[in-house]
């Protein structure tokens, strides 16, 4: 029987520290042709994200279930690959270690921008990786049948023996999470750390997360946290469900962020992150999820208990 691994990411607790990104980069994308790649990235939203403006490039499926070939990003939309010149900065005068060549764009370039004016400005962190979709658009678009979805865990992989670098997958993935290695002339993507998973260890991004906001497990394992959050209580929801790919990375929307303040700086009980913005990311279902999460929090603060909050606050990162 086909099984599906899933990841739940609790955006309410994301620190924006990028430890996940660094763990992934060190493990998988430091080799030639992958320098520019962030299979896991954390973007400050609202913002253009990585690759730049990925949300408006199309892809996914139309109403008839036909795969849509979106726009291919330009290489510059992923940002330049730079190196720090320690030799020059530390030993040959100067005293400043600069990135060379000087970058003009990159992953999380607009980290501190957010949106809105002082007093009501807001932003949130959005960690992203391949969603190992139930209906992967990347797979549907590949004319070589080079992309496959594993029966035993639902991990979506690119067969490097079959890939010929056509990049239809890059166009079709609405999350722009297949990336092109121009050194090898082939497409590559997040492998959900399958060599670790096969040894019963969670993904590097989930393992290293200091915020302990990621949980990994099988959706059909009723004892797993991902089951409890995504299936049983349905408080974890996918990003852009309207793309039609059935993502298996689920998010707890931010529900305890700060309020807008009045001109004296006093909170006035209006959420900084507008619901319209959250709906644009997670669909209309996000309202009910936030209502549930707040009710659970109320219950706990008035002396009750909440399985949801217990799971969210646990140190448990995986159940494999």
């Amino acid at each position: 029987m086909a099984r599906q691994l899933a990841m739940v990411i609790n955006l309410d607790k994301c620190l924006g520290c990028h430890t996940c990104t660094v763990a992934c980069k060190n493990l998988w994308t430091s080799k030639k042709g992958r320098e520019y790649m962030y299979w896991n990235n954390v973007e400050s939203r609202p913002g253009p994200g990585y690759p730049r403006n990925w949300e408006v490039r199309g892809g996914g499926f139309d109403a008839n279930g036909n795969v849509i070939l979106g726009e291919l990003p330009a290489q510059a939309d992923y940002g330049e690959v730079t190196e720090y010149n320690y030799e020059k900065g530390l030993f040959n005068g100067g005293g400043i270690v600069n990135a060379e060549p000087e970058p003009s764009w990159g992953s999380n370039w607009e980290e501190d921008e957010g949106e809105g004016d002082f007093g009501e400005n807001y932003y949130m962190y959005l960690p992203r990786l391949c969603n190992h979709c139930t209906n992967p658009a990347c797979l549907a678009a590949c004319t070589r049948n080079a992309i496959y979805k594993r029966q035993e865990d639902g991990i979506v992989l690119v067969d490097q023996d079959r890939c010929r670098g056509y990049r239809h997958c890059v166009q079709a993935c609405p999350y722009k999470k297949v990336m092109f290695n121009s050194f090898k002339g082939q497409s590559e993507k997040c492998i959900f750390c399958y060599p670790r998973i096969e040894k019963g260890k969670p993904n590097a991004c989930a393992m290293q997360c200091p915020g302990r906001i990621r949980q990994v497990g099988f959706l059909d394992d009723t004892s797993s946290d991902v089951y409890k959050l995504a299936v049983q209580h349905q408080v974890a929801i996918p990003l852009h469900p309207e793309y039609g790919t059935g993502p298996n990375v689920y998010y707890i929307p931010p529900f305890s962020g700060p309020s807008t303040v009045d001109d004296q700086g006093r909170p006035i009980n209006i959420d900084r992150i507008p619901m319209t913005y959250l709906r644009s990311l997670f669909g209309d279902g996000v309202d009910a999820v936030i209502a549930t999460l707040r009710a659970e929090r109320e219950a706990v603060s008035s002396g009750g208990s909440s399985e949801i909050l217990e799971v969210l606050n646990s140190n448990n990162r995986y159940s494999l």
Partner: protein
Amino acid sequence: MMKMLIKQIVKIMSAIILLASVAITDTYARGGFGGGGFGGGGGNGIVAARVLGNVLVAPDDALWNNATARSFSLRFVNSTGGGGMQGGGDGTSGGTGGTMTVKAIHNGTDIAFRLSWNDATKNDTVNGVDEFSDRAGIMFSAEQKCRMGSPGNPVNIWFWHAAKGIVNNIIAGGLGTITKTGDDNIRVISNYVNGEWQLVMSRPLLPVNSDNQVDLSNGNGPIAFARWDGANRERNGKKWITGQTSVSLQ
């Protein structure tokens, strides 16, 4: 998956070879690949001129004066969007068609083809996701109906990739099945001059492995040519192709 495919193709081909060895004349006794089907003779086809010495010479070498050029008009096809794919501007031709001019020479041991076509931009590097290489190919033993061969009628392709600077020997048994065989005995010299690609590809007439390569010692046909314009992001089934012709040896 790939192993299975190769196995399947090889199986089918061995069956054809078996049949062929019984059914066909001396002319094809050595011909293992694809079961022939080429009637030989010059006719309307390309005639490889007999020359002395090395045939792997630059596209502007005087040796090519021995061969008669044949020109074929290029037609845009796009089989990539099949299966209900849409969008991405990938269905449009955009690039320029024009003609593919072909010459061939042989010295009794090796054969060389000289292909030339107009291409306003030279794309021989791929430095990012948004760059595509110019490419060209010759397809041998093409079936009449299905352009990329079919499981029972594999085709053999010489596939040149400008950015890699190499020619791969490829077999295919239908759309989406092309497979590099690793028999990389096809040599290449390419030139880009005044908006024109000039490409020389050469191989021994005899296949290094008759499961993976056509025998060219008695010519071959039908054959066809294709080119991909990297500037127009052409790849896979999005390409320009000629009609079918044949090659015979002088």
